[in-house]
C-alpha cells in the first residue's frame, strides 16, 4: 500500500484525529491527536491486512531552545513530541506515529504534558513509557505503574528536557 493511499484510509476512518503527516521524510510519519491515539493503535494492531503487532520504540523529543540568541533562528515553536516506531512482522513494514504535545500541560510550567498510555495495546509499552516519563517528562494517563525506571526514585527533574538543570547535589554527591 502506498503512503498516500494508507493515509487516505486512516483519514476516512479517523477523520480529524489524524492531525498531520510528512510523507516525504526519510521515515514518513503520521501525526495523531492524543485523544485518538489508543483507538488508532488498536486499529493498526488488529486490522488483518495491517497487523502492526510489534511496538519497537517510544521516544520523547523535547523541542525547546534554552539559548535566546539561537531560539530566534529555529523554525519551530517549543513543543514535545512522543514518537512511536511500529513494525509488522507478517508484512515486514514499519510505521512512525507522532503525538505533538505542549511542553507543559495548559502552559503551566511544572505540569507535565499528558498522553494516553498504549500499554494496553502492546505490553512492551509499559517499560518504554516509564522510560519516556523518567527522562523526557511526559505523563502517560492510564499507565498501570508509572514510576521512574532508570533514574533513582527520588531524582528531581527529567534530564532529557532541554531546560533541565543538573541538581547542585544529590545525597552529598556534587552535581555541578
Amino acid at each position: 500500500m502506498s503512503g498516500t493511499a494508507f493515509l487516505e484510509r486512516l483519514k476516512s476512518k479517523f477523520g480529524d484525529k489524524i492531525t498531520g503527516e510528512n510523507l516525504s521524510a526519510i521515515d514518513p510519519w503520521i501525526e495523531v491527536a492524543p485523544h485518538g491515539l489508543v483507538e488508532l493503535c488498536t486499529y493498526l494492531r488488529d486490522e488483518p491486512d495491517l497487523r502492526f503487532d510489534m511496538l519497537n520504540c517510544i521516544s520523547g523529543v523535547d523541542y525547546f531552545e534554552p539559548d535566546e540568541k539561537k531560539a530566534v533562528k529555529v523554525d519551530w515553536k517549543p513543543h514535545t513530541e512522543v514518537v512511536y516506531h511500529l513494525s509488522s512482522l507478517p508484512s515486514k513494514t514499519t510505521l512512525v506515529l507522532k503525538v505533538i504535545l505542549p511542553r507543559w500541560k495548559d502552559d503551566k510550567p511544572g505540569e507535565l504534558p499528558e498522553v494516553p498510555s498504549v500499554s494496553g495495546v502492546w505490553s512492551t509499552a509499559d517499560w518504554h513509557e516509564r522510560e519516556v516519563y523518567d527522562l523526557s517528562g511526559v505523563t502517560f494517563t492510564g499507565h498501570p505503574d508509572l514510576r521512574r525506571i532508570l533514574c533513582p526514585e527520588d531524582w528531581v527533574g527529567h534530564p532529557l528536557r532541554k531546560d533541565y538543570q543538573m541538581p547542585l547535589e544529590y545525597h552529598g554527591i556534587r552535581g555541578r
Partner: protein
Amino acid sequence: MSTQLDDPRIIEFDVRTDEMLVNMGPQHPSTHGVLRLVLRTDGEVVSETTPHIGYLHRCAEKIGENLTPRQWIPYTDRMDYLAGMNMNLGWALVVEKLMNLQLPEKARHLRVLIVELNRIASHLVGMGAYGLDLGTFSPFLYAFREREKILDLFEEACGARLTYSYLTVGGATADLPAGWLQKCEEFLDQLLPVISEYHTLLTSNAIFVRRTAGIGMLSPEMAIDYGCTGPVLRGSGVDHDLRRDGEQRYTEMYDGYAFEVIVEKDGHYPKDHDYPPVPKQTVLGDCWHRFYVRMLEVMQSIDLVRQAIDRYSTSTGSWGEPVKLTEKLPKGEAYMETEAPRGQMGFYIVSNGGGAIPWRARARSSSFCNLSVTHELCRGCLIADVPAIVGSLDIVMGEIDR
C-alpha cells in the same frame, strides 16, 4: 532453658508459611551485571518478580545530544560491551541513513566480516555464562578460550579488545592489516570442531536439559507483544531476522550471502544434522530452545564470516574512509534497527540542521525489551529457576541502562 518436646504435634501446629520478599541482586553473580530482582515467594515458589534496573545508567542519550555522531561511537561500545562492533554498526548505519551516504562494496563486506565475528564472541560468552548460571564452570572457561582469540584478532585490527569504536560513520577507522584474513581463517578452522565439544558439555547434557527444558515458556504471541527480539524471539518459533527482513539499507549488506534464519520448523532446526537432536522434554519457547538458537547462530556466523572473507578479498575499492569528525548533519530524523546478537538494536537520530551535533540521540535496547518479559516468565516458577530464566534471555545490563 532446654527445649524438650513433649508432643511433637504442637510445634507442627505452630509452623506456618508466609509470603516473603527476597532481594536478588544487585550484586548477584548470575544476574549478568547489576540487576536487582525482587521476588515475592511462598516457600520455594515465586509468585511475582519485579526487576529494578538503572544501576548502570550513564546518561548515554544526554551525552549524545552534546557530541557529534562520530564522537558518540565510543559510548555505543559501552552499551552492549560484549558486542561493541554491532553497536557501532547500528549507530553508524542510522547516521548514514540521515546523511544519505552510500558505502563502497568492500566496506560493506568488511562490516559483515567484523560484526559476524563479534556475534560469535558474544554468543560464546552467552553460552559460557549460561552454564555458569546453572552451576557448571567449565564451559565458561572453554568459551573464554575461544573468545580470547577473537579479541586478539580485533586487537590487531583496531587496537582495542572490548570497546572497539572500529566501525564508524562512513565505514571503518582503518583497513584490516596485512595477513589478518589468513589468521581469521585459521581461527575459524580451529573453532569449528570445538563447537561439538560445547554441545557435549551443555546441549545434550542430562542435567542441563533437566534445568532448562520446559522452564520459562515464552509463547510467540507474548514474545511479540513484549517486543522480544533476536534469539529470544526465534527461540519461540517466530521466523524473523532483520538480516533478511530488515530495512533495505541494512539487508543490502547481506545481499548474496547464503544463510538461513535459525528457527525451528517441524521439530528441526536448519543444518542441525551434526548436532544432538532436540530432546523430547523440551517445548518450543523454553530456555533450552533459546540457548540452542544461539548455539546454531554461532555456526551460521562462522559460515557468514567465511563468505565475507571471500568477498572482501576479491572486491575492489575503498574500505570506507570515515566522514569528518564534525561533518554537518542535514535536517531530519531517522530510525533504524539492526540485528545485534541480543536482538534488534535500534537507534533514532533527530537533527535540526545546520550543525554537527544531533538534537536527540536515542537508543532502543534489545535486552531492555527482553528483560521486560521476566515477570511473565517467572510467575509460578521455583527460586532456583529464576537464574535459569534470566540467564536464557542473555541480557547485558550496560545496554539496558545505557
